[in-house]
């Protein structure tokens, strides 16, 4: 156990790599192969490229709303890389790095933001719950998923994500308490990006760290530099393996920053200074990781250029496919209310179908 001496009630944040990409705690450095690191790096860059492009598409009026992840790529990719394929994820809506790593096709993600539920139909074997809009409520599902696995004697772990704002919600509290009492294999990750829309983290709660909220549940809490992909990986790995062994849940606070807007409907300049943003840009998780990889001889400018080019063409291609996907069919809108349409739904469906046929003429 690496981090069990960690006390989330102090200001000591777990960091392994500093903002210059230097490993400051070699003793804590996780064992990752070069391939694994490169895979993580590539996913992080992919997230950045997708965000950049999608925000552009939104400005061009080609997509309605989008919640970008700028600055939170290490939090997401570092944590999820510590999980197995068969581990579950219950996320909110700002976890693109998690979703891509878990195998949700980019097409699906874009289709969802484009306004089609089909995007959140998970492909067989992708154990991720759909985008969850009511803040913090997904934490409750996470405990149930874990209970069911435990019930069958399976050792799958459930990772759940929430924002700093979400920690204020009653559902956050109830789920953590349930998990601790039932000793379920849950890892609860707070992406503390310092804001809930316009509301500052410091106005959200008076606890010094969000990780220390673990004390309320008799659960370990970890306060981690969320822009340090290695710290995120190492801490999550320990929590995941601990849970897998039947030792119960952990709460992790990933201390990070939302460099972009809350969603494309939001204008962050209304409520925060440029200076603050600039200070955090220096801690950029991708820059930091790149510096490390370059310093180790695993990466170079040429590869970077190629990677970006490649990813840009993928997003372009996938988005164009999405744009061609058209509307959701009337069938789809009706067919998933129940396993079988009720007679009344059948009737309502037929009425609308007839009206649309008339209108089409």
């Amino acid at each position, binding site marked *: 156990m690496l981090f069990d001496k960690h006390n989330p009630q102090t200001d000591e944040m777990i960091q392994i790599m500093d903002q210059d990409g230097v490993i400051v705690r070699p003793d804590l450095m996780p064992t990752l192969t070069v391939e694994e690191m490169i895979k993580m790096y590539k996913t992080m860059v992919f997230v950045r490229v997708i965000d950049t492009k999608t925000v552009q598409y939104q400005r061009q009026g080609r997509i309605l709303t989008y919640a970008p992840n700028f600055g939170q790529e290490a939090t997401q990719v570092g944590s999820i890389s510590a999980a197995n394929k068969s581990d*579950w994820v*219950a996320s909110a809506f700002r976890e693109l790095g998690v979703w891509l790593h878990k195998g949700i096709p980019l097409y699906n993600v874009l289709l969802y933001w484009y306004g089609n*539920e*089909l995007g*959140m*139909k*998970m492909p067989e074997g992708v154990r991720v*719950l*759909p*985008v969850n*809009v*009511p803040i913090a*409520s997904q*934490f*409750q*599902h*996470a*405990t*149930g*998923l*874990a*209970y*069911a*696995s435990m*019930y*069958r004697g399976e050792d799958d772990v*459930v990772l759940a994500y929430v924002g700093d704002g979400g920690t204020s919600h*009653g*559902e956050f509290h*109830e*789920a953590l*308490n*349930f998990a601790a*009492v039932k000793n379920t294999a849950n890892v609860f990750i707070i992406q503390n990006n310092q804001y809930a829309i316009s509301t500052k983290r410091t106005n959200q709660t008076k606890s010094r760290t969000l990780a220390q909220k673990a004390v309320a549940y008799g659960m370990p809490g970890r306060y981690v530099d969320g822009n340090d992909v290695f710290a995120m990986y190492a801490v999550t790995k320990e929590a995941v393996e601990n849970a897998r062994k039947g030792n119960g849940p952990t709460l992790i606070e990933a201390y990070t920053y939302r460099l972009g807007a809350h969603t494309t409907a939001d204008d962050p300049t209304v409520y925060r200074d440029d200076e603050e943003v600039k200070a955090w840009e220096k801690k950029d998780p991708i820059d930091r990781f790149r510096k490390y990889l370059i310093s180790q001889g695993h990466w170079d400018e040429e590869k970077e250029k190629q990677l970006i080019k490649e990813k840009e063409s993928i997003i372009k291609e996938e988005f164009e496919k999405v744009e061609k996907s058209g509307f959701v069919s009337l069938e*789809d809108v009706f*067919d*998933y*209310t*129940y*396993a079988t349409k*009720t*007679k*009344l739904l059948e009737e309502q469906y037929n009425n609308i179908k007839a009206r649309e046929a008339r209108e089409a003429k």
Partner: protein
Amino acid sequence: MLVLNLIEAITDALDVEMGLDDSIVVFGEDVGFEGGVFRATKGLQKKYGEKRCFDTVLAEASIIGSGIGMAINGLKPVVELQFSGFMFPGYNQIVTHAARMRNRSRGAYTVPMVIRMPYGAGVRALEHHSESLEVLFAHIAGLKVVIPSTPYDAKGLMIAAIRDPDPVIFLEPKRIYRAFKQEVPEDDYVIPIGKAKILKEGNDLTVVSWGAMVRDVQNAIAIIEKEGFSIEHIDLRTISPIDRETIIESVKKTGRFVVVHEAAQSFGPGAELITIVNEGAFLYLEAPPTRIASPDIIVPLPKGEHHYLVNKNTIKDELEKVLKY
């Protein structure tokens, strides 16, 4: 054949189904060790172990929400809310998740789950222990809502609810939990959700009721029929989806319609039934379709409750008015 009262029939249904299906888990506040405050889950923990029947922490959203997670991951949770008046903290999970997971995931994830709760007034209880909230569930797409009125139906509907691929709200009329016993088959059987039951055929008037009110209506009908009227009495059994056909057919025959319920009048379940009758049998109506319901006030504490509950006399008087219209 067993001879059981309504709550025993529910216990029996849970027992039978748990015996047949390993994936059923039963939980809620005080549900495990002591078998629930009404003892609906009595004996299940002893028989099936703590993993399958357990006490939860005091948190309704967590009871429903964790149940949703379990259902997605292959279990069939049957959860208890101690009283329907305490469902509100869990209502967010019911409406925004249980009812929607199938649609949100386009069928990849589903929530085959039963949410049980005792409901209704007339037991001289504290505040929040007497509510009739069927509309708050029936108005929500993605939910089914069931209310039994007899032990036999309770068992068959509970088994149907457990086997249903979608979330079912199972409202238990606690006023008649122990009111009477009935023969109930020992094995499993199903009463289809969505099917009303014609308790009694008749020609002059159709009366629809459900839950504890069924017996009050039966008593009122018994008196009125002595005056020579012939009344058709339907037990709705499923509040959503409503068995419109059975009701409409009946009104086409009788030309008169009354619905009797415990829930508050305004925006209550009776309004939906009257509208269905308007939609399906308007030209057959010989009198205004009528609702008999509780007033739009907060259910009073015991010393005022007699003012509140629809009683046999009210029913009788109203039925007569409609018959003589």
